[in-house]
């Protein structure tokens, strides 16, 4: 009781140091292990397919490489399929696997709002592995960007051919 009084005197108030995460063992979370043991959506699509967007990102600090590919339905703009290939730690593999699962069936703009913090929370990633979820978020964004640039290129190519035709006919 006096100790509490003393603490108040010193103005510490309720400045309790939060207990460290109550995990006794420092292993991977069971979800991460699950994604590692039962990998979903591992594979590759054809890179030159116009409906496929490829996101290729890397983390130089740990030497990880992550490739995430999305297949988009041109008409609706929805992502119909996704696959990934990651070389890195278990957390990176799990993050990209979760990313492919979440991305399927969503609209492209919706997918850009997936945050790395959500992935990290879903997998209970420790702070030191947060950059893996960041990598997954960047991979999604890169894939979407790649798809958009592919869509823009044929449009530009069509415009060019139309112009050359005009010039030819003129």
């Amino acid at each position, binding site marked *: 009781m*006096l*100790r509490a009084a*003393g*603490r108040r*005197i*010193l*103005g*510490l108030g309720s*400045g309790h*140091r939060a207990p460290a995460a109550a995990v006794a063992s420092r292993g991977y979370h069971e979800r991460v292990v699950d994604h590692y043991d039962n990998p979903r959506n591992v594979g590759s699509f054809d890179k030159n397919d116009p409906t496929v967007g490829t996101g*290729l*990102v*890397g*983390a*130089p*600090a*740990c*030497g990880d*490489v992550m*490739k995430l590919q999305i297949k988009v339905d041109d008409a609706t703009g929805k992502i119909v399929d996704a696959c990934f*290939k990651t*070389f890195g730690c278990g957390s990176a593999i799990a993050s990209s696997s979760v990313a492919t699962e979440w991305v399927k069936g969503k609209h492209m703009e919706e997918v850009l709002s997936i945050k790395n913090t959500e992935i990290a929370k879903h997998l209970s990633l420790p702070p030191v592995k947060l*950059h893996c979820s*960041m*990598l997954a978020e*960047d991979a999604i964004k*890169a894939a979407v960007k790649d798809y958009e640039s592919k869509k823009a290129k044929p449009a530009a190519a069509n415009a060019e051919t139309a112009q050359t035709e005009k010039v030819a006919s003129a």
Partner: protein
Amino acid sequence: MTYVGGVRLYLGLWVMSSNSCAMVVSKGLVNPPSTGREPYFVSPPGAAARPLLAVDGYASCSFIFLLFLHRLLFFLRCPFFFSFVFESPCKMLNMLSVFSVLRRQFLENNCLNVFLIMRRSKNCSLFSLLRTSLKELVYENTAKRGLWLSASSLVDEDLHLHPRILSNFCINTRSFSIPVKRFDRASNCRGLGHHEFPEFRGLNRFLCSSEAGSGELPRCWNCGGAAVSPGPFLACGLCGSVQPVDQSIDFFQIFGLERKYEIKDGNLEGKYKDWQKKLHPDLVHSKSEKEKMFAAEQSARVIDAYQTLSKPLLRAIYLLKLEGVHADEEKTITDPDLLAEMMDIREAVEEANDSHSLNQIQTQVEEKFEKCSRSFEQAFKMHDFDNAIAAIERMRYHDRALEEITKKL
């Protein structure tokens, strides 16, 4: 009747001594120190009567009032247990005042003052009661474990002056660097030498020796001999004692190499073994705690140096770190060429199942690593740090690929 009178007399004497404390304390109220930052124990020689504590006005007023009340009761011949009842609040208020001072000192980050005040106010019971809070406050304010350990040792030892305290200060030098630096302004360092506290004379000597400074040869803490031989002063040449770690000696200096990426004929292993023959902890088994600690730290540093310098990638990163460029950032890169190349290599490693093809891939990757190495060297010589960082990234990827190959082989 006489028995009770005797007890009263005893109590009266006790109260008088606490009264004199109050006098000292109230003097502090009248003559408070000019600035909050001035350490309380630095005093010009001869000013022995200077009050030790300056108190918050409120605490001292209530303290004096209670004392007055107590004296009044005593004068009116109240039964002694009434006066006894008033003794403890007086004591509590005394402690409170001490604590308000302590708190202010903590908030001003004047940690060493705190230790002195704790030492001076010899009130063990209060401190054991509030020990936990003290520890928390020290820990929060300084966030240095070494400081916390010393604080707790001070409290635990019942405020006795102990030579071990000095060694605690010395041992936790790194953790003390912040409060000690704050404390060790030029004026204070000199002023301390004249003060009555013998332990701080020792601390002063220690502080001033570790701040050897420019132009001065470092001296051995044991025999006082100056460093004679060229090269880093890790162990004394005269008496053989291991010296405390000097963070300004970088890894290249430990091995007597120039700060370059290329280290041919460095004979790293030979020099490493020579150093360990002088610094290894097993050799100081029978010596003092202080020296054992120095030996542990020094030999750990030499091991770090050896491991960093013997691997090219780590050497490159360390070189950049010495130049103040931080290469180890956790950003994502989207360089398509490098990443595509690495993906191909890693996929090839995954698919290759026999050692022959793995060895082939290994040689290819090693060649590429060499190329990146050369480009880093070039960039570093030109002080082109952006290209140097890019080269380091490539090196790391190749290094990782080589690790995977080795794992598979």
